[in-house]
């Protein structure tokens, strides 16, 4: 009978979940569904990455709804960073007719994102566990 090896007990590890959401998934949702989908995830401590970002109107609504959900000793808000995708930079024509700029967007809980840095090629987030 083989000798049974006992594993050393390990400390339970705190983890952070990162959800990457495709543009196709977001396109299926209404604006309010997108906002609640994002905020529900962030309130659970997740970092949410959107392939295609939000429209200015949706960003405006996101700020409003975030503010209504902040509570003392609970949810303290979001940190957000976006990265424009060069192929979709707005020009005169798509600005005139309201076409939206596509942009990679990273959203996380404000009390867990310690550093959120952006340059022309990188978004960097340091996320602490609760």
């Amino acid at each position, binding site marked *: 009978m083989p000798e049974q090896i006992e594993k050393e007990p390990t400390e339970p590890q705190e983890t952070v979940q990162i959800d990457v959401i495709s543009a196709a998934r977001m396109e299926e949702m209404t604006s309010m569904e997108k906002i609640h989908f994002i905020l529900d995830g962030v309130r659970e401590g997740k970092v949410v990455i959107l392939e295609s970002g939000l429209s*200015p109107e949706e960003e405006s609504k996101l*700020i409003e709804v975030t*503010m209504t959900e902040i509570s003392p000793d609970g949810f*303290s808000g979001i*940190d957000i960073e976006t990265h424009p995708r060069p192929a979709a930079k707005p020009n005169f024509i798509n600005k005139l007719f*309201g076409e939206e700029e596509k942009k990679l967007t990273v959203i996380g809980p*404000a009390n867990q994102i310690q550093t959120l840095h952006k340059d022309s090629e990188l978004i960097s987030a340091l996320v602490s566990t609760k």
Partner: protein
Amino acid sequence: MGIIGKAKTRISDSVNALIGDDGTARIGIYGPPNAGKTTLANRIARDWTGEAMGAESQIPHETRRAHRKEDITIERDGNSVTLDIVDTPGVTTKVDYDEFTEFGMDKDDAVERSREATEGVAEAMHWLKEDIDGVIYVLDSSLDPFTQVNTMLTGIIESRDLPILIIANKVDLDDANPGRIDQAFPQHETMPLSGLEGENMDEMYSRIAAKFG
């Protein structure tokens, strides 16, 4: 609606947006917390009406409700413009009551201020959506302007085709760098200013009269 129809509607909306029903443009003073919005609003109001608009403080979120001062008539360079100035709470995506306790507030006061601040930000966004015809966007020129709140807010303002004048405020500070704000927003008109010291106010009034008049 066809392409030409869409274009006509957007151009017409832009023209109608700047001039309210009574011919008075309603100009919102927007920006992040502690950029000096109320100090600037008070200086404008005092210069042209003799009365201030609201309390100023170094503690973030001193302004937690939008305040409107009506019928401020600015005359410059042969242009005359009558404005309603709306001083709005600083816009942010997060509020933590710990930042208020660091200024010596007790916990209950800090929690209450935090709650009012969140309502104020939501109100500011609502004004921007419904009731503002043009924007004076105020930034602290000693701080990095490349923040997501600034990017989002200017994007929202652009998407509504609202005219915008960006103020690089607090140039009286030693580490002020108004050139950085100019570089951050090349698509918009920017200008350096000290609302506290009153530096460059005449230039700002000329630009307001030209842009919003």
